[in-house]
């Protein structure tokens, strides 16, 4: 009766609805392709998450990344995938009585980790603080006068490598996670650049690559690792990784070596004879924003 009222049968209408839905779903499924740009290779597009890569696949990825660095920056670099060492868990401590605020650590980080030169990026911010206060909101990073200034102390802040990391919890694609040695890392090729982690971090420790990093060829540090200082792509988040390309090989982080006053102490917290353990056991250490429950692996202390 009603089938021919408008000249379209119900069957035809349903077919139309089904076809529209199907086409829409298909288009949505292919939507990531619309973000395809000239510098995105098929291999890169199809690359799996860091923790799903087989060793062979990882070698291919590293080779590709090295070739891309050569193509884009004209430098031969060696990118490794360095795994955590069993029995090693890192911790860092910083003596606020000794730190003079010279910012050499921030500079060393900038050079070591192939940061974008125009933006002067670094994983470390040094806060100039009023003596008697630990209010980070009142810390000034832009100070430009001889240091240490009277009445001030200086507090370098970088990733605290929390054991309960808010940045990891909020990541919608699990592009950032905590490694067994305590370092919170980012798979720069999996990050979608949503910057949730940057917003979640109470220590302002994450940085976003607004642009493709610009670094003169002669300044590029050629010793690189997949999870640390390889040159990051545009549009991804990065952070301090305790220089894992150095520290997982037994070396000290670049910021510690640059410190002219010896304010920084780094080591394996599982080793009872390590320097970091001595500090944790003999100094009155504290962590930043303890009340948030982030459980940092970065400790601060004053001399008595």
């Amino acid at each position, binding site marked *: 009766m009603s089938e021919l009222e408008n000249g379209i049968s*119900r069957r035809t209408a*349903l077919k139309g*609805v*089904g076809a529209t*839905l199907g086409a*829409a*779903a298909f288009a949505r*499924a292919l939507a990531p392709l619309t973000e395809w740009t000239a510098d995105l290779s098929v291999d890169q597009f199809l690359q799996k*998450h860091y923790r799903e890569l087989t060793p062979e696949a990882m070698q291919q990825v590293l080779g590709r990344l090295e070739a891309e660095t050569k193509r884009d920056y004209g430098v031969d670099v060696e990118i490794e995938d360095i795994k955590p060492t069993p029995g090693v*868990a890192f*911790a860092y*401590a910083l*003596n606020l009585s000794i730190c*003079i*605020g*010279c*910012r050499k650590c*921030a500079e060393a980080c900038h050079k070591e980790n192939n940061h974008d030169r125009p933006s*002067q990026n*670094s994983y470390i*911010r*040094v806060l100039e603080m009023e003596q008697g206060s630990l209010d980070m909101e009142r810390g000034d*990073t*832009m*100070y430009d*006068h*001889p240091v*240490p200034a009277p009445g001030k102390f200086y507090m370098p802040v970088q990733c605290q490598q929390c*054991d309960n990391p808010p940045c990891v919890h909020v990541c919608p694609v*699990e592009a950032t*996670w*905590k*490694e*067994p*040695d*305590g370092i919170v890392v980012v798979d720069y090729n999996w990050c979608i650049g949503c910057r949730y982690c940057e917003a979640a971090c109470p220590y302002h420790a994450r940085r976003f690559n607004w642009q493709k990093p610009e670094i003169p060829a002669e300044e590029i540090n050629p010793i690189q690792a997949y999870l640390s200082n390889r040159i990051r792509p545009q549009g991804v988040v990065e952070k301090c990784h305790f220089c894992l390309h150095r*520290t997982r090989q*037994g*070396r*000290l982080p670049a910021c*510690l*070596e640059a410190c002219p*006053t*010896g*304010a920084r102490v780094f*080591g*394996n*917290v599982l080793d*009872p*004879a*390590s*320097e970091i*353990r*001595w*500090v*944790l*056991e003999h100094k009155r250490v504290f962590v930043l924003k303890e009340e948030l429950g982030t459980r940092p*692996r970065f400790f601060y202390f004053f*001399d*008595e």
Partner: protein
Amino acid sequence: MGRKRFVILIVSLLGLLGLLALAARPRKIARDSNPGELEPAQVAAGEARGLSLSERAMSDHGGEVAAHGAPAVGVPADAASVPAAMDRSSFPTTYHVSRDVGTLDTGMRDINGRHIGVPCSTCHVQHAEPPFAERPDQLKEFHTGLRFAHGDQTCSTCHVQEERDKLRLADGRRLEFAEVMTLCAQCHGPQARDYRNGSHGGMNGYWDLKRGPRTRNSCTDCHNPHMPAYPQVMPVFQPKDRFLESKVHE
């Protein structure tokens, strides 16, 4: 009517399915069962750090003192022991001693750009020297520009008139300039203790001595012994911050 409802049901089911398929796109990665939590602190043997003056040796290119284990800060030269905790380290820790310690700066540099200093005994050879100055402001002819801000010390607190190329411990014993850390540690105990345990003075190289060596500063690398307070410096690497540059936070 029944058919209409059936059709609506089918269409909404299709839509739901589509939504579900979209939602499932970001794949989940299996989490580590235990992402390396901090172990509860164990009772440590950290206090007992080695000190072995006897193991020290001047390297022949001058200016570096190498020793296994930990530095000999604040401990007389005859006390030497290496606790078991340090035995497993296979690479040495080198204690840097700058070449200008115990010399007078000539202002010249050798072909490698290194300091050329004159040992004190080059000039201080006369046996009939005038009496030892008590304070630098008593110096009328030589070392007149020496600025001094180190408490109530006198020259003879650390220097010896009879042996100009040696230092003097509080108990009168002589000490090589290269061992200056022992001298400083007589008064600066907490700093010496922190240094001995790796939390003062800075270092370079390896945190893991099983995998590589380490270099450490000595006191006089950072502190001028006559004016030991760390001097003010201009900070480097002025940051560029998109937000803070405009000082919107104030």
